[in-house]
Structures are given as C-alpha cells and as structure tokens.
C-alpha cells in the first residue's frame, strides 16, 4: 500500500477533512460522556442549546468566536508561510496590555478616534512580540516554535507584574486588575443586555481583508510559495526574510487585536485570566479551516459553540467542561489525517 499525490482535489473532498475531524471529536466526546454516566443525546442536546439555543446563547457563542477568529487568522497566515507562531497567547496579552496603556486615561479622544487607536496600538504590540522570534529564525535559524512558546510565559509574567505593580487599578480593592478602559474606548454592544460587541465587525473585516490579501496580492503569492517550498521560492527570487517579516507582523497584529477586543469589548479591563488559551485554540481553528481565512470564521464559530455549549452542559450535567478542550484537540489531530486523505490517494 502506498500513497500517491492527487493532481487536483475535488471540492467535496476538501470538505471531507473538517467533517471527518468533527465526527471523530464527537465520537471521542461521546465515549467520555458515557464514562461520565450521562446520556449522549441529553449531553449533546444540552451543548447545542447552550451554544445556539437562544438569543443569549447565540450572542455568547459569537462573542467567544471573536477572539478565536482573530487568533485563528493569526495562526492561519503564519502556518501558511510555515512560520510556526505558537505564541498567539502571548501576543494577545501584548495587545491587551497596549490597549490598557493607551486606553485608560493616557489621552482623551472621542470614540471615532479612540477605538481605532486602541486596535492600532494593540496590533503593533502584538506584531512587535514576534520581532525577536522572526529575527532569530531568519538570521540565526533558531526554531520559532520554541521561542514563541517560551515568550508566552515571559509575557504572561510581565502582565502579572504590570497588574500587581504599575498598572494596578487603585480602585480594585487589591485585586490584580488594571483600570477600566475609558468610555470612549469601549466597543459598543451589538445586542442590548448581552456581551456581544462591535469586535465582531473587526474580526469579520480582518478575515475578508486577509483573504483578499492572500488570494490577490503579490504578498499572498510569496506566502504561498514560501509555504509550499521555501527553497524553490528563494531560487525564484522571492524575498524570504522580508516576506516572513510581514507574515510575523500580520500574525502578531491579529493576535494583538484579539487582546484589544477582549479588553475593550468583553471585559472592560485587563486581568490575568483574560484568555482561557485563545492563542492555542486559534491553532485548532486555523487547522480545522485548512488555513483558509474565510473558513476560519466558520471554524471559530463552531469551536466557540463547543466551548460555550460544554460550559453550560458542565453546569447542568456531571461532565467536566474540559471536554471542550478534548474535542478541540482531537479535531486538530483528526483534521490532519483528513487533509492527508484528501491530498493523497491510497494505491495498492
């Protein structure tokens, strides 16, 4: 038995990978639910209701999908160029930190200027967090996976220091949290009395712009070439170092924007538990979307639904909500197999 590369992948086969991944992760989740002694149908129904069953549930899922879309896009563009940025979690906190620095009274602008300013600051901070890994990879060929992973811990400790020291809100009664973003910087709510905020538009716009950029620009072509075969790309005259610089900047900026939208949209102030691993889940989002920017929106919504649904099921039934993480992880692994099966055909 051997594998043979397909010349072209029919469209229905490219959908097969994510569908298979979802099916396999549902299967694994079913086994765990049985072990927990609950009925599978009940559990999945509770999950579906908790994620999509009411206006409130739907807005919760969509607000969870905002950061996941942005970190998913961050992973998608980086992985396309084979720049394995696993540091979206840290870059997210960099963005949140920048938004807190700029948005808690440093300057007093109206919302029309303030909100874009917050995103620009956050995106810049996120991008800068990738400067060192980019430099080390392109100049010294130090593996970016390890540097970005380790920087996550450094950045988180830096945020922890800022929240207990210079940035701590004097009104926080000693809790390690920063002062709230001023009113002009707060992203407006989209549905009254819910947590869904205008960050949704930012995430959608980012997905569309990134798709256009990758699909129609020279930069997009260079990214694709680098990802397919970096040696061939270099020989063809594609400036690898420069392209990777912009890939790193964009990837970090997107993750930073996720941090801004969480601080200025969802929470209102920076805390150490701002992100329950959005940076890492973003990798799953991107993989499930086969690194396609528009697909990222769908897979982010789906994975957001799983985690919101699992939370609400966990409260009602005796199934720990860690089941959401397990489903995300098994989706990452099974989508890899699915992608391989769609790209190769098995010959005897």
């Amino acid at each position, binding site marked *: 038995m051997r594998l043979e590369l397909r010349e072209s992948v029919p469209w229905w086969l490219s959908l097969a990978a994510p569908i298979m991944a979802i099916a396999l992760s549902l299967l694994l989740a079913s086994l765990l639910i049985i072990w927990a002694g609950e009925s599978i149908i009940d559990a999945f129904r509770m999950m579906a209701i908790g994620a999509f069953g009411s206006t409130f549930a739907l807005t919760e899922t969509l607000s969870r999908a905002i950061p996941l879309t942005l970190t998913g896009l961050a992973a998608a563009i980086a992985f396309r160029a084979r720049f394995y940025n696993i540091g979206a979690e840290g870059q997210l906190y960099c963005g949140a930190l920048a938004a807190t620095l700029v948005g808690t009274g440093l300057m007093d602008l109206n919302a029309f200027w303030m909100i874009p300013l917050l995103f620009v600051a956050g995106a810049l901070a996120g991008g800068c967090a990738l400067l060192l890994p980019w430099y080390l990879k392109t100049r010294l060929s130090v593996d970016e996976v*390890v540097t970005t992973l380790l920087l996550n811990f450094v950045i988180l400790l830096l945020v922890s220091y800022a929240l207990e*020291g210079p940035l701590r809100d004097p009104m926080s009664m000693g809790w390690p949290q920063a002062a709230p973003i001023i009113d002009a910087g707060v992203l407006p709510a989209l549905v009254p009395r819910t947590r869904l905020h205008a960050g949704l538009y930012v995430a959608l716009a980012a997905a569309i712009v990134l798709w256009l950029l990758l699909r129609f620009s020279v930069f997009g072509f260079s990214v694709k070439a680098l990802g397919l075969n970096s040696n061939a790309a270099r020989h063809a005259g594609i400036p690898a170092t420069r392209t990777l610089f912009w890939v790193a900047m964009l990837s970090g900026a997107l993750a930073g924007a996720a941090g801004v939208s969480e601080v200025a949209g969802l929470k209102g102030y920076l805390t150490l538990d701002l992100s329950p691993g959005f940076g890492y889940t973003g990798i799953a989002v991107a993989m499930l979307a086969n690194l396609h920017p528009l697909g990222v929106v769908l897979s982010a919504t789906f994975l957001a639904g799983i985690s919101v649904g699992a939370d609400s099921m966990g409260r009602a039934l005796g199934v720990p909500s860690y089941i959401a993480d397990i489903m995300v992880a098994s989706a990452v692994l099974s989508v890899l197999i699915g992608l391989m099966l769609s790209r190769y055909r098995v010959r005897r």
Partner: protein
Amino acid sequence: MDILDILISASFWAATIRIACPLIFATLGELICERAGVLNLGIEGIMTAGAMSGWLWVYNGGDLIGAVLFAAAVGAMLGLLHASFTVSLGLSQHVTGIGITLLASSLSYFIIKMLLPESTSPPKIVPFQNIDVPILSSLPFLGEALFSHTPLTYTAFLVVPIIMYVLYRTPWGLAMRIAGENPVALEAQGIDVIRVRTLAVMLGSALMAIGGASLTISAFDAFYFGMINGRGWICVALVIFASWRPGKALLGALLFAGLDAFQVRMQQQAGAYIPYQFFLMLPYVLSIVAMIIVARRAEYPKALLKPYRRGERL
C-alpha cells in the same frame, strides 16, 4: 555576599538536584525522539499525563514503583499516537505535537475532574521518601547536597549513562541515530526506519511521562492544575542547548535547575527591590538565550522534521 551565602548552602545544591530530576528525564526523552528525527512537541502534555497517571496510581492504592511504570506506559502510548501521525503517516510534527499536548493535558484534567469533582487540588499521597546513602550521606555538606534524595532522583542520574551507552554503544542506538541523520542509509541496511523511529518516540515519550510523574510522586505529593507550567518547552530548548548530546543535556538540566533554585532564594532576599515575576521569568528568558548562544554551531540531526516514506527521495 548574599549570593555567596546561597551558593555555599547545602540546601541550595540539594534543591538543584531535586529540581533537575524531572528536567533530566524529559530532556533525555525529547533528545531520543529528536535523535531519531522526530520533534516531539507533545512533551508538555505527555508530562502532564505522566504527572496525573503516576499520582492516580498511588492514589488508588498502587505502589510507587508501579506508578512510575504506569506513567511510563501512558507516555509510551501517547508516543505511539504521536509516531503513528508523524512517522507512519508522515504528518506535520509541529501540529501533531501541539495537538497531542492539548489532548493529553485536557484529558488529564478531565479525568481528575471526573474522579474528584469537588476539589480544586487533588488530595495528597505519600510520595517517594528521601533515602540516605549509607556512609556518604553523613559527609558534611556533600551528604546533604548529594546523597539524601528520593530513589527516583538517583534513577534520573543513572538513566543518563544508560542512555549514553544505548545511543553510542549498541546497534539499536546506532540505528536510532542513523534514522535521524540519513534514514535512506538505514533502509539500505535492511532496517525498518518506521519501526526504529516509532520505538524511539515511544521510549522518549515514556521518559517524558516519568519526568512528569516525578513531580507528583517524588518532588511534590499531589497533582495541581497547570503544574508542568512550561517545563516541557524548556526541555525542548535544553535539547538544542545540549547539541543533542545526553551528557550535555544533563549539564544543561543541572544548570537550569540550579538557576531555578537560585532564583527562588534570591526572591526571598531581593524580593523587596525586584518584583518576583522577573525571577520567575529567568528560566524562560535564559532558555531563549541558551538557544541563541548555540544557534551558530547547532548541529541538527540532518533528517529532523523530515518524514520518511519508503521509496521517496528526501
């Protein structure tokens, strides 16, 4: 003066040895995988699974040696999963590793939550006790620093020469090293590259899991959420720092453990002037610095990250 006080205290050196134990196991584990040509980023999750399963075994009334073996078996199974993706199917080692880390750690937390729904930190067990080496442990200074540790810690130091022997002096170790340098040559010798790499990843993952278990059944006495806390990633950096050599890996692990023990003691002394977060950052920052230092002369195993498919050119 303060620094000198720390360096001449036996408890500092004892702590260094104690902290090094999980790092030694896990770094050697990662080293074996990479020497065979497979980057195993599942390390963080495999260590978590090892910590959880070792603790669970003892909590359920098992003995400590059984706990080590059980953790190793769990690790080897996760290694088999990793290898079937990255070796048999030749899929992305980066994504598979991250996926396995997510899967293994969330499964571990799920299992703990299932068994103990109420508690935030699982109950304590009776871990390995310190064993004083006869005669040697009564030496002044050295006795406390080197010869009063748990059996698992002594084992960590014994594993280093064993791995060195296996890697450099046995046909099996030679096969493993060639699998990571030139798999086509290995195939030409009639040796199945897929099998060699799979076994190497399983063995390496078992060692990582023992490293994780050493935290719950030797260094501490309970399983905490997030207790691995990036140790796995530090071990990946240590392998690069060690230029893929077991002896240097031991040195690197000791260096980092020493730094960690030092940082904790400096926190107590200088904590008033410098916020503690900056001390906690040191291991991560220095891991990056260490990789930069060796970057120029890093000799990666030639076939690292390259999947092997029979009959295909590299």
